[in-house]
């Protein structure tokens, strides 16, 4: 065993890794509850399939592209198949934990990021097209972007951009890609024709709760050590989520006279998004401001989006793209070496130039995500075909794409195709002696 490895640090990072893994499951519940029952499985599978696909991609070549010691633009192919990714620490990332712990921790980020995009394209995208999109997006957008910001020698890192746990890499990139994807895919057949409302709000709350829980791993784990920085990030994470929830509830109360559950769930997630880039660089009082402002920006954007023809179905751009941008810019405002001596100073600490650096990081992320997503979707559209036809959308994608139902016998329109009225016939089961039926022979 390498002497530099710290048992405490390794234990925390491995724990945090498992916490972040649960976030993708939470996301499946969060998104799954927000769609209609006939698309619940399809929507949840968009997150679940990422757990499988991206894990495989990561070991084969993803981690190498993102974190190999390559050029400022990408990590290269030296670590293909985890060759050289062993139990010894790599001081470029964390001197006290095995490199494999770092690889697995980062894998969970790579899994949830493209899954976030799925919220914009639910209830209408062919599943096979989504899977191809997922693989290409992870490889050509997420992996290089992660290298720019966190990889050894990445150009945004060298520039001094502050992104503690992935405000740019994860949330802005996913949010902007979601916007582009929603536009290119077009609206759902029922969009603005009938009321489309969440089918299971308790699932939404369950998912939001799991996201909050997992986010402690996401942010506090990004310290890559069990130390004061992890505690700072933990504190800021909870504070911002709480503040955003309270802010959202107040905005709901003022606008409609009632506090909503979907609003509370959305608000807390937005606060978590906002604090992500800032978690390890700002003080606890500043995280109150980050939570409140992220909620304000996102809430306003959702109200405006609802008046447009844009079918960003679950408001991924408003919740992740804009709250992520707010968080990235607010990091430039509130960052202070009083909170984290190894971090940086922002505007309020007398370093206005940091705002410029943050802006460059945001714009570079937006450019790569928007252009990359447009190119990938154009290719997928031309080869695999991208949109479920009207008939499939009416039946629901659970039936048309997966051949199963979240709530057996209850889906589709009344007496529509696929509706099981009365008893179903089991085709694949072995025929047995009928119970209680009169013998025929």
């Amino acid at each position, binding site marked *: 065993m390498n002497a530099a490895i710290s048992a405490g640090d390794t234990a925390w990072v491995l724990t945090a890794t498992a916490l972040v893994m649960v976030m993708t499951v939470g996301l499946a519940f969060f998104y799954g509850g927000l769609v209609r029952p006939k698309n619940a499985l399809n929507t949840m599978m968009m997150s679940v399939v990422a757990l499988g696909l991206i894990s495989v991609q990561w070991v084969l070549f993803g981690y190498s592209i993102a974190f190999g010691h390559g050029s400022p633009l990408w990590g290269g192919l030296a670590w293909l198949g985890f060759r050289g990714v062993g139990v010894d620490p790599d001081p470029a990332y964390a001197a006290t934990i095995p490199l494999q712990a770092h690889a697995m921790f980062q894998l969970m980020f790579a899994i949830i990021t493209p899954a976030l995009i799925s919220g914009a394209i639910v209830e209408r995208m062919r599943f096979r097209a989504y899977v191809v999109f997922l693989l290409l997006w992870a490889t050509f957008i997420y992996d290089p972007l992660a290298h720019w910001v966190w990889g050894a020698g990445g150009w945004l890192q060298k520039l001094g951009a502050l992104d503690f746990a992935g405000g740019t890499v994860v949330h802005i990139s996913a949010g902007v890609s979601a916007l582009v994807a929603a536009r290119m895919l077009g609206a759902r057949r029922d969009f603005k024709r009938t*009321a*489309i*409302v*969440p089918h299971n709000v308790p699932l939404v709350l369950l998912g939001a709760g799991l996201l909050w829980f997992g986010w402690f791993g996401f942010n506090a784990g990004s310290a890559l050590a069990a130390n004061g920085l992890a505690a700072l990030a933990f504190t800021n994470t909870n504070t911002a989520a709480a503040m955003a929830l309270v802010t959202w509830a107040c905005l*709901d109360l003022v606008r*409609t006279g*009632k506090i*909503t559950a*979907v*609003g509370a769930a*959305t608000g807390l997630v937005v606060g978590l998004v906002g604090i992500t880039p800032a978690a390890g660089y700002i003080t606890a009082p500043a995280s109150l401001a980050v939570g409140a402002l992220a909620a304000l920006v996102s809430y306003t954007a*959702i*109200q405006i*989006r*609802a*008046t447009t023809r844009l079918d960003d179905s679950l*408001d991924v751009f408003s919740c992740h793209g804009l709250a992520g941008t707010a968080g990235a810019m607010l990091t430039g405002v509130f960052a202070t070496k009083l909170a984290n001596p190894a971090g940086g100073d922002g505007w309020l600490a007398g370093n206005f130039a940091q705002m410029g650096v943050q802006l460059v990081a945001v714009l570079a992320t937006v450019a790569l995500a928007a252009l990359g997503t447009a190119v990938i979707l154009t290719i997928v559209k031309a080869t695999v075909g991208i949109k479920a036809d009207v008939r499939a959308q009416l039946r629901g994608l659970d039936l048309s794409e997966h051949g199963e139902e979240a709530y057996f016998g209850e889906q589709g329109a009344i007496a529509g195709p696929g509706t099981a009225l009365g008893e179903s016939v089991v085709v694949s089961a072995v025929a047995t002696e009928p119970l209680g039926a009169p013998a025929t022979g």
Partner: protein
Amino acid sequence: MKLITTIVRPDRLAEVKAALFRAGVTGITLTRVSGHGGEQEIVEQYRGTTVVMEFHEKVKIEMACSEPFVQPCIDAILSSARTGEVGDGKIFVQPIERVIRIRTGEVDNAALTAVNADAVQREALKHVQHAGAGAGAGEEES
């Protein structure tokens, strides 16, 4: 013989059922239905989406009654389902041509008489005596 169909508020169902049983009407069929009447629409908010629920949840109860039971049945429903607010529902009374009990092949009034008719009648009478004159009037609504 009459087919009595009534549409009532779901939250009055328990009282309506109790009143009908007391009146001796035990053969009933329930359906959950949605309907539009004079009631104010419910507004729901989900993020940026405002949904106006134009249809209200109601319960439809259907029962076939022989003639002596028709008026007590109507009285029972009126006394138990009424709140005085818009949206209390309706009662429809239609003639029935034939009734056949599938188990025995009995027809018409014989088919409508409950199997435990004697017990039901005794129970119903007890309540009529308790409530005094005007069967079903002044139910226990508290």
